[in-house]
């Protein structure tokens, strides 16, 4: 290993830049771009908008990251958001009819019902992947269809109203200390996930299971339990985002989340260097990835890029990010 240290260092540097350095550079560039071309970007309302959508996305992407770390994949997150939104709104409306004005009953029950959806779908995903060792793509493709079907069936495509005003006005659309409430929830979640990843056995086990399943099992890591937990957490985080989005919007909608949220959550994670092969991923970078994507979407909106075109751009970004990630991995393996 003594020759060509220069070559090795250069390779190492390239791979570093490819893995971590890309994001801050992209972020700075996009903000600089907006500073030059679209001053509206820096309006307070717009910044709130960006922060809100970053928060929603970061929560979902953090869940997606957990699943990716155990070498999995979750296509159903968008559908879980839709299902959560409709179920929670329906529950609140129904409970609200039975106990009018009893917000202390209505809101917790609604939130529980919403989280229950995440738990349910996450359990199906996790159990199938952990016990059948089948492709997570197939399983979550199946649950994607199931959850979307359920959400549509519940609402017949019509928005569900009837959530307590307190929930929408005093929480969903409120500001705490000058910032949208969602931002605090997202920060708390990111901090919690960071703590779990770096400071707990469970976090370490997730990396081990994704990094070398056989080694983890031999070392006594309860691999199946960890895989199931990752899927359940992922779906429940998606549910949490669904609850926040519904509270902000004021109605339960089966069209919420959907394809675009799923795509963005995967893109945010992949941009942040989360490996599709498992074992690698940091939540703080994923949050940055979410921030970048939200700025990008917002910028495209401000610049009046057709929303259909935005979908195309996202598709390209996802594929390019994955290609770069693969490239970086290959380099690493050669060093």
């Amino acid at each position, binding site marked *: 290993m003594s020759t060509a240290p220069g070559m090795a260092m250069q390779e190492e540097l390239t791979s570093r830049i490819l893995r971590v350095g890309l994001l801050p550079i992209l972020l700075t560039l996009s903000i600089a771009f907006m500073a030059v071309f679209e001053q509206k970007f820096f309006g307070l309302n717009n910044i709130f908008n960006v922060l809100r959508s970053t928060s929603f996305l970061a929560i979902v992407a953090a869940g997606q990251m957990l699943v990716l770390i155990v070498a999995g*994949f979750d296509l159903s997150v968008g559908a879980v958001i839709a299902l959560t939104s409709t179920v929670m709104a329906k529950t609140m409306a129904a409970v609200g009819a039975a106990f009018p004005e009893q917000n202390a009953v209505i809101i917790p029950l609604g939130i529980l019902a919403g989280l229950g959806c995440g738990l349910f779908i996450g359990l*199906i995903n996790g159990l*199938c992947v952990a016990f*059948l*060792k*089948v*492709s997570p*793509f*197939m*399983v979550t*493709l*199946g*649950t*994607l*269809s*199931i*959850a*979307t*079907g*359920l959400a*549509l*069936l519940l609402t*017949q495509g019509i928005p569900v109203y009837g959530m307590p005003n307190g929930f929408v006005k005093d929480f969903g659309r409120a500001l705490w200390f000058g910032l949208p409430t969602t931002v605090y929830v997202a920060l708390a979640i990111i901090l919690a996930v960071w703590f779990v990843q770096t400071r707990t056995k469970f976090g370490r086990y997730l990396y081990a299971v994704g990094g070398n399943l056989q080694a983890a099992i031999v070392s006594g890591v309860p691999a199946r339990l960890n895989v199931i937990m990752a899927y359940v957490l992922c779906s429940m985080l998606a549910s949490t985002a669904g609850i926040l989005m519904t509270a902000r919007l004021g109605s339960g909608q089966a069209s919420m989340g959907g*394809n675009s949220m799923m*795509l963005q959550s*995967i893109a945010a994670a*992949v941009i942040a260097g989360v490996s*599709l092969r498992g074992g690698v991923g940091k939540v703080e970078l994923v949050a940055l990835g979410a921030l970048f994507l939200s700025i990008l979407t917002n910028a495209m909106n401000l610049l009046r890029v*057709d929303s*259909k*075109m*935005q*979908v*195309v751009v*996202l*598709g*390209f970004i*996802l*594929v390019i990010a*994955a*290609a770069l990630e*693969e*490239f970086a991995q*290959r380099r690493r393996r050669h060093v």
Partner: protein
Amino acid sequence: MSESAKAEEGGVNVIGWIAQAMLPIALVLLLLAFAAAEQRVLSLGNLQNILIQSSYLVIFASAQMLVIITRGFDLSLGTAVSAVSVVSALLMTGSLAGEGGSLGLAIFAGVLIGLGVGMLIGAFNGIAVAWFNVNPFVATLGSLNISLGIATMASDGRPVFNVPREFSAIVYNGNILGIPAPILFAGATLLVLHFIMAHTVFGRGLYLIGGNPRAAEVAGLPRQRYVMIAYILCSVIAALGALLLTGRTGSGEPNLGGNLTLESIAAAVIGGVSLRGGVGGVLAVILGALFVTVLSNGMNLNRIDGNVQMIVLGCVIILAVFLDRFRAAAT
């Protein structure tokens, strides 16, 4: 040792046989169950209907089969179908809108551009997967959105009407010796594909690449080229199916793809195309497509809500995974 090996082989065959026979039996049971609820299911008209309906799915599932055999996957199939439908319909109507547009030329150009769009999407997938080593799910997830964007942008989200009747007359209402055109097209596709998979170096290469990509490369097979061609073929075949569907509806539909991705994957995997790569054939696709078609036909005739059908489809996908697992354990 050879004795024990032989016994082993015998054992495998019995379980393998059960795995093989399960699907046809399930198919018949399904038909009977639906028929019990609704007699029309077994009427001659409906059976012919099932055949015609399944010919579309057969085409899409056989496209999907090509890439699944290479351990791949095509999530963009449905939206590619939409994009092809919209773009070719736009071209046909557009070239007829002016004075004196030639009908034959318009249809020809529409078909050509439709297949061309398919080829482009396939090339995107194939290059990303084979040359840039992007995970097939991610690559086709990306192109899913790209083709969705193309479909909705080109049509502005609305159906493109006035597709020439003559086009539908050929690809939907046409027949040879009383056999409806869709069945003919599906049959031709299957024959060609069967020949490719069973008799050509390329087909053999796909099986070996799916069986063990690394070993295939060591053995000197051009893995990247073959995989790319598989994705292109997949999308071109899907484009063919899209043109047939456009002929049936008589309009270019930005939502034509709908559940097709899910249905095509379900059909291929249920039929026995292994998600682990290297296993599967045309016969599997026919059986799988029939199964899925009978399921949705039966539910339609029994007036089951479309959203419920979506849930059932999701369950069927998961069931397909179970089946795949069982088959893998059997061999």
